[in-house]
């Protein structure tokens, strides 16, 4: 029987808890993208935050906080089958017990390692690549990451921009973090108008573009290396390279 859940991590954890504690499932799938197959029974899982939290805690106790944490990171991946990679990973864990994660070359372990690492990597990269523009005293940044890493940006920028109001907007998922300088929250967010930037902001951007161009050593030009670190698909939100002169 396939389990369908509501896209949330709590929903996934609830489904996994039911799988391990009550009745085995053949697979966990997000309900909106589910392809019904003839003869396959399905069960809609109702998200239970308390059960989810308890199960998460169980993972920490049974394996390690690292394993639980890794599940959370892997869940943010854009891998289309991440739920079942996680399910296979945990099945293996429940069979082998504590320490299973060290067998990182095992086919049940390796994929989760890989996607969790990719998520961490992208989040780390965006701590640097987020670009704010100041509009009426508010710092606004848009980005469109491959993975759902918006939530991983929040605490870092809350600390870094202490006391400032800011917005980080994931344009791919229509979500944003709003922060008033003290607290943040994640909300659905859409922007369908062009931004009009104040003169002061344009001047700072111009200064930065000039700096960015001049700091490169012309004798060492290496566009391939540059694109390797700063993939082109990110460029549209990067102030220093999104103006016509770089396209």
């Amino acid at each position: 029987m396939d389990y369908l859940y509501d896209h949330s991590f709590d929903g996934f954890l609830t489904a996994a808890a039911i799988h391990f504690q009550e009745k085995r499932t053949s697979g966990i799938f997000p309900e909106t993208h589910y392809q019904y197959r003839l003869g396959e029974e399905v069960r809609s899982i109702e998200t239970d935050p308390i059960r989810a939290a308890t199960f998460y805690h169980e993972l920490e106790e049974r394996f390690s906080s690292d394993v639980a944490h890794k599940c959370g990171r892997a869940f943010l991946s854009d891998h289309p089958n991440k739920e079942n990679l996680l399910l296979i990973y945990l099945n293996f864990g429940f069979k082998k017990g504590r320490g299973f994660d060290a067998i990182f070359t095992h086919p049940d372990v390796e994929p989760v390692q890989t996607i969790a690492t990719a998520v961490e990597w992208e989040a780390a990269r965006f701590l640097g690549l987020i670009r704010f523009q100041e509009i009426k005293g508010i710092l606004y940044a848009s980005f469109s990451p491959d993975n759902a890493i918006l939530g991983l940006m929040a605490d870092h920028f809350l600390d870094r921009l202490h006391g400032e109001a800011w917005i980080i907007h994931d344009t791919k998922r229509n979500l944003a973090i709003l922060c008033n300088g003290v607290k943040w929250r994640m909300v659905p967010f859409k922007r369908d108008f062009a931004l009009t930037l104040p003169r002061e902001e344009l001047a700072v951007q111009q200064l930065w573009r000039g700096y960015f161009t001049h700091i490169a050593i012309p004798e060492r030009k290496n566009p391939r290396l540059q694109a390797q670190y700063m993939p082109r698909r990110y460029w549209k939100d990067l102030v220093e390279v999104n103006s016509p002169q770089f396209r």
Partner: protein
Amino acid sequence: MYDVYDRLQILADSAKYDVSCSSSGNERKNNRAGGIGNARSFGICHAWAADGRCISLLKILMTNHCVYDCAYCINRSSNDVPRASLTPEEIAKTTMAFYRRNYIEGLFLSSAVDVSPNQTMEQIVKTLELLRHQWQFQGYIHVKAIPGADPRLIQQAGFLADRMSANIELPSSESLQRLAPQKQLQTILKPMNQIQHGIEENRYALKQYRNAQSFVPAGQSTQMIVGATPESDYQMIHTSQKLYDRFQLKRVFYSAYIPVGNPKKILVPIPKIAPLMREHRLYQADWLLRFYGFRAEELLDEIKPHFDADFDPKMIWAIRHLEQFPVEINRAPFETLIRVPGIGHKTASRIVNQRRLASLSVEEVKKTRLVWKRARFFLTVRGKYYGGRSISPEGIKTALQPEWSHQLRLFPNAKGGQARGLSI
């Protein structure tokens, strides 16, 4: 007079050959009310310039007016370049504007010597004071100690900065004498010494008094220019090793010499490998000194004083020490594993962790993210050797040749001679 935009570009041009620009080494949470910024110990890159180098800090000179005439330097007094200065206020304001927008992690402030070392250092200290006190900036600051400046000024800067550096520039006092006659090794080593003592004293003070200010918490670094003088790779890494041992430097940076203007005093022998490739090899060797327990004497010696364009220093070392190989991957201690070409720290610790559960088969070994095609010559797996019939330096080199063309792509000018900037 230029406006800020033009002056910033001129001073970025003047600073860009200085490479010692990473923002790592100090973790600081923002805890002061009203302050802005934090510092992360892992270092954050914010952009990559057209040369593929990470931009982490706003790297500029206070001024490029210089009273000195160091032959290797773009800002030497005899060189015809546009000259400009920024005021402490302008630098502080620009740093804040860039920092708030997340363009940068902080400031890397250096300077040419305008009028006198003291006057220059005073301006630098003033900029730092503005940033830390008036703007309450808590981001990363790396600052140059200007050789010859009053120790009191260096002391002041040290309490405001995260990292300080004094550039040694050249690995021998003879070369320094020839190319930078107004500088002396002693004036460069003096601030280095002072900073190191400052850090040590401060470590004690921090333990004793809860409110003690920290002094250069991210440590000090230095930079050497590669390829402007005839020193061998052996001399370079030997100097680095001495600097690490004696001053406990966090980093030595290497900068391939790029001729600018018409530097008459520079005479370099046509090198076997191009400066960029050489720089790359020196970084690899430096890494081995710092994290892999190698000593300079193990990697090179007087008879073979240069690294190779074709193979990295660890591979060269391993090929020259075949008597120590092969080692059994299921038994060799960690320190031995990390000396195997194709095995890094992370892979070695994974291997050690995994083999505790069960010995590794060759299929499992290949999946550990080691570089099998390099490592296989130096390993046995469950007693079996996979490096071919007999292990010989020539055999290994031939088998590894294809790797070479890949590196050539990374370093378009890797082969000597035709490298740009060598035709002097």
